[in-house]
């Protein structure tokens, strides 16, 4: 799985680890701008959103990420005001908006299919919100012109939405929402309807717009690459619950659950038993049919505890000979079963007893990619103890 990563716009926002440590999921703190407070929503017997609490800071770019049906869209519709939560509160800037209809909320939405008004010109589409709030004519004119300039559509102002391309329509939808100066901008799968090339272009465009206006952006997406490159922080959702809220880096490097580990990037999982506790949180884990690697415990563990271990494919290096034991403690032999060449990297499926391990190499002499094992060759897989992650034990998805 390939992830295009563009520098995220951290300049507009305070450092996240500090923020993440200070405001936990359940106790929103004072600076939090958008607060989801124990919100639950059911449709019939199904709990679409199950006791979700989140806190987003002012100016932050935040993503709700998850597979379809995880409740992210329902949560978005509750923030916009189209659904009423069964329980819980939603606050923006300290004001409780749970009971307000959509037209009275300081929140605007960029809809998935853009929902542009087909009977109005681009200019009138953007002016719609200002007309609804009965602003003076001069303010409407300057506001709309400025917004169209921001999304670089000034020369298309007189056209109808049907005459625009997909990317242009989306920029109209963004301008139409932003012209009302919302305190929170919601974007529902903003790139889903675009083709690949346009999507990569709009990723950067969205980051630029966010940087320029400084509004709090909430993205809803099922695409991990999109979420990682757009957001300061991501909430990964699964079955109506939030699995983990963290920066893209932390989600990738230290996922708390195997769901997060598989949803963001690829991962190898092993189930093992703790055999020996080492100093500084390192533990020896016995994995049947493979061996006993040394890994970082990632939280309190005890002897004989069963746990799950996760290793990213690109963290595994391959060598033809057994690496010197002092240098690499976690080394296991295996047979190359399958090879897939991707150009920028090559993937190997390696059989080790009953385990099938995915490893990814970059063809560079410094990264150990100068070896070229053939199918059926015996290789050694090794990884650094810090790169084997213990994730929460849960039922296999």
């Amino acid at each position, binding site marked *: 799985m390939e992830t295009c990563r563009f520098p995220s716009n951290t300049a507009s926002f305070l450092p996240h680890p500090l923020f993440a440590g200070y405001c936990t999921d359940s106790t929103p703190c004072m600076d939090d701008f958008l607060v989801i407070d124990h919100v639950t929503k059911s449709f019939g017997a199904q709990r679409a959103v199950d006791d979700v609490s989140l806190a987003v800071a002012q100016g932050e770019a935040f993503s709700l990420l998850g597979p379809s049906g995880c409740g992210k869209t329902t949560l978005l519709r509750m923030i916009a005001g189209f659904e009423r939560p069964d329980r819980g509160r939603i606050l923006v800037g300290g004001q409780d908006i749970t009971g307000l*209809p959509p*037209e009275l909320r300081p*929140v605007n939405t960029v809809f998935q299919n853009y929902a*542009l008004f087909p*009977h109005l010109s681009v200019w009138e589409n953007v002016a*719609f*919100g200002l007309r609804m709030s009965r602003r003076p004519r001069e303010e409407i004119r300057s506001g709309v012109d400025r917004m169209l300039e921001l999304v670089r559509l000034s020369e298309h102002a007189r056209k*109808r939405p049907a005459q625009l391309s997909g990317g242009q329509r989306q920029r109209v939808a963004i301008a139409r929402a932003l012209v009302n100066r919302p305190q929170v901008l919601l974007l529902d799968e903003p790139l889903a309807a675009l083709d690949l090339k346009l999507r990569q272009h709009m990723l950067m465009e969205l980051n630029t717009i966010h940087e320029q206006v400084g509004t709090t952006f909430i993205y809803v997406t099922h695409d991990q690459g999109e979420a990682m490159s757009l957001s300061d922080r991501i909430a990964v959702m699964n079955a109506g619950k939030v699995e983990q809220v963290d920066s893209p880096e932390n989600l990738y490097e230290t996922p708390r659950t195997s769901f997060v580990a598989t949803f963001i990037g690829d991962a190898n999982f092993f189930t093992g038993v703790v055999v020996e506790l080492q100093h500084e949180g390192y533990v020896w884990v016995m994995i049947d049919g493979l061996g006993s690697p040394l890994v970082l415990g990632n939280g309190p563990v005890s002897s004989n505890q069963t746990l799950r271990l996760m290793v990213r494919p690109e963290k595994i290096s391959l060598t033809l000979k057994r690496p010197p034991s002092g240098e690499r403690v976690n080394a296991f032999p295996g047979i190359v079963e399958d090879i897939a060449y991707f150009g920028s990297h090559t993937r190997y499926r390696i059989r080790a007893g009953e385990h099938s391990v995915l490893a990814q190499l970059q063809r560079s002499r410094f990264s150990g990619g100068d070896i070229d094992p053939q199918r059926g060759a015996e290789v050694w897989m090794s990884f650094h103890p810090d790169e084997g992650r213990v994730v929460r034990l849960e039922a296999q998805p």
Partner: protein
Amino acid sequence: MSAGLKPSRQWLITLPSLAWLVVFFVIPAILVILTAFRPTDLQGGVGAGWTLETLREVQDPAYLPILWRTLWLGGLTTLVCLALALPMAFQMARVGERMRQVLLLLIVIPFLSNFLIRIFAWKSLLHPEGPLTKLLIGLHLIPENAILLNHVGTVLLVLVYTQLPFAILPLYAAAEKFDFGLLDAARDLGAGPWRAFAKVFIPGVGRGIISAAVMVFVCCLGQYVIPQMVGGASDEMLGNKIAQRVFSDRNLPHASALAGGLMLAVLVPMLVVAFWQRFGRKEAA
């Protein structure tokens, strides 16, 4: 649909219905208009030769109030029908499949009984000894001696009753294609529910509104049974006059002049609308 035919030959498919229209509509319509330029004969038929006499006759100022009444009754019926049909079509497009079938059935059921019988039903319902009159008097909603029948308001009521389905069906067809997500977008941008309906839904079903309005208005213009049966002596519409010239006066050229004039009055606006829709569609594409 016509995979086997070349595009240039596709119009052949419309030939049967085109032939039907020419034989049973275009030719009779031309005959009616031609009859207006014929003299009458003493037996109530059409004489030989050509004359402009009838055209002078129909310019009788006595027709003006009748023409005016025909127009405003048709216009008002159209407005009332649209006002009732718009929320109905809106709801029908939003309810579930099952409820939608029930509503459609309810709209179509009245057509199972004869048009005249339904008008007679209104007549007995509104009769001074009828159930509705008695009920309203019993509730002291109308004075004791009130007569509901033979009134221009009654004509309007029954016109709306008969034309309402013809307003609902084209509006429903338009509302079904409407993207209701646009209403969410309007609400999101600060429009209350009513403004969202007026600013987004109504323009969204604009073509349906035009179709419904033409349908209802045109059908009203030709009515003569309803004013004759539930209206008073002074509630005649142009259709009554045409019927009178044909059946009582036996003056076919005069009736033809009135009917031809009415037909042109109906056709011209419809052609304008058709051209406008065609033009509008091209612009949207």
